[in-house]
């Protein structure tokens, strides 16, 4: 090889929006994790690669098309730019590049969900047995056979997961939990870490920074899913008593088995509606929702916030982690961020991102001076850091916090 470097005349490398995904084999193993055969693993990895391709290569094309085609076309037609996100989106929807990007993104999500289910169903009897055995060995799982999930969870299957969170395919079913574990890792390309727990690590990092030395004794995690993020707090605060609530029995059985198999013993998983959490009149130092509110409804969110206040101990903190609100964002970015709300079955996504969550917390009685907006982040483990926003699948989270003062405020 000659010592002279050969230089190819190509454009400079595009900034990374999405790093190369980690393979699904990087998921943190535990006793309840489904075993994926070669091709099932390959399907997950190809799906992750597909998403990376869409973010890295096609999203810039969408942005160029918006600037070079969509905006000038409106200007030429009407002599003025779009007034709001809805006008902008209606124009975008006529654009070929937007249509192709959207079509492929939607198709890939459907494929990943189907692939996750097809990988899990054949081994479901064995997985159910494993979870039964593990959960028989502890008393940290409390299901309610009479429970009726709120309509928004059964009517709309979030992020295209067939059956949604609350389906029961048989006795002691865990299919939704098992599929969620695998598919979430693939959808995020492993950027949330081997345990898909980046939100939990971001929450912990935020607490360490903003409440240094604070050790919550009791934590309530509303909408815990399979508990990956709950486990981060459980490990960081081993003496804390944690209650994790969710509507999905299949998620909770899986979550309880997963946590037990990982040696986490300070979380009780309880089935219930987080609008009225089944925790009696118990109080907690930290009451949180991580990536949950966008799946509820406006009245649902208001009731959840009211419950947070009701179950918060004096001096406690309620913490809600979501994607940032749309306000002040450029219209194109709003449309890109709103994709999940329109095309990925996220019930309350669009409306929630237009809502002032801090005002909602104040409305349920948190004193104005104790409500604030902030951000939380944690380094992605393993994957190289993306330097640009992937609009909804990466980047920093938005957090709204409410504090219950130790002393009653004296009204003046």
């Amino acid at each position, binding site marked *: 090889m000659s010592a002279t470097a050969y230089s190819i005349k190509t454009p400079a490398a595009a900034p990374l929006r999405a790093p190369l995904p980690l393979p699904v084999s990087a998921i943190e193993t535990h006793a309840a994790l489904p075993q994926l055969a070669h091709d099932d693993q390959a399907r997950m990895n190809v799906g992750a690669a597909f998403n990376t391709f869409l973010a890295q290569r096609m999203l810039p094309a969408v942005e160029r098309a918006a600037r070079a085609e969509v905006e000038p076309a409106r200007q030429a037609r009407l002599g003025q730019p779009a007034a709001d996100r809805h006008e902008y989106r209606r124009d975008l929807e006529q654009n070929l590049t937007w249509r*192709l990007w959207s079509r492929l993104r939607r198709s890939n999500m459907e494929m990943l969900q189907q692939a996750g289910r097809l990988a899990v169903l054949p081994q479901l009897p064995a997985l159910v047995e494993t979870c039964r055995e593990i959960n028989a060995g502890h008393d940290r799982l409390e299901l309610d056979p009479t429970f009726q999930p709120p309509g928004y969870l059964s009517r709309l299957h979030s992020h295209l997961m067939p*059956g949604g969170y609350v389906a029961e395919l048989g006795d002691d079913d865990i299919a939704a939990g098992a599929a969620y574990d695998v598919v979430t890792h693939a959808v995020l390309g492993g950027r949330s870490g081997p345990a898909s727990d980046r939100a939990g690590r971001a929450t912990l990092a935020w607490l360490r920074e903003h409440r240094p030395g604070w050790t919550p004794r009791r934590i309530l995690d509303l909408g815990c899913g399979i508990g990956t993020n709950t486990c981060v707090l459980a490990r960081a605060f081993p003496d804390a008593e944690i209650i994790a609530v969710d509507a999905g029995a299949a998620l909770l059985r899986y979550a309880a088995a997963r946590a037990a198999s990982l040696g986490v013993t300070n979380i009780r998983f309880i089935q219930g509606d987080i609008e009225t959490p089944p925790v009696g009149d118990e109080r907690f130092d930290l009451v949180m929702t991580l990536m949950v509110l966008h799946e509820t409804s406006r009245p649902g969110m208001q009731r959840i916030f009211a419950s947070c206040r009701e179950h918060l101990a004096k001096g406690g903190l309620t913490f809600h982690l979501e994607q940032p609100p749309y306000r002040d964002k450029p219209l194109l970015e709003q449309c890109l961020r709103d994709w999940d709300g329109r095309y990925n079955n996220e019930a309350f996504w669009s409306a929630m991102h237009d809502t002032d969550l801090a005002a909602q917390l104040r409305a349920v009685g948190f004193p104005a001076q104790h409500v604030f907006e902030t951000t939380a982040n944690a380094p992605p483990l393993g994957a190289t850091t993306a330097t640009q926003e992937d609009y909804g699948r990466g980047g920093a989270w938005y957090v709204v916090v409410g504090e219950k003062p130790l002393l009653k405020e004296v009204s003046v």
Partner: protein
Amino acid sequence: MSLERDLLAMATEPAAGPRPQFFDDPAMDRVWDVLAALTAELAVTRTRLNSLERVLAEHDCLPAGVVDGWVADDEAARDQAQAHQEMLMRVFRGLLQDAAAKQ
């Protein structure tokens, strides 16, 4: 791997919710959806072949030309036919889901 038919159907049920149409002609949505699935299945197949070649090389055990000269027996043919069905369920998922969602 052979799958029970009902599991294939179960895994192919659409998620409850609206099914967006991005193109004026729904056929265009369908064609792109199928293309996406075919692309994914092709990538999976290429990964499989690549893995296989690496395994065989590691074990130093496949004389050249053996695969080209191989003929499936009844059982292998049945397995492969079943695998074809499974692949078609994956590739034509969107078609089936559209039909199911309309009921």
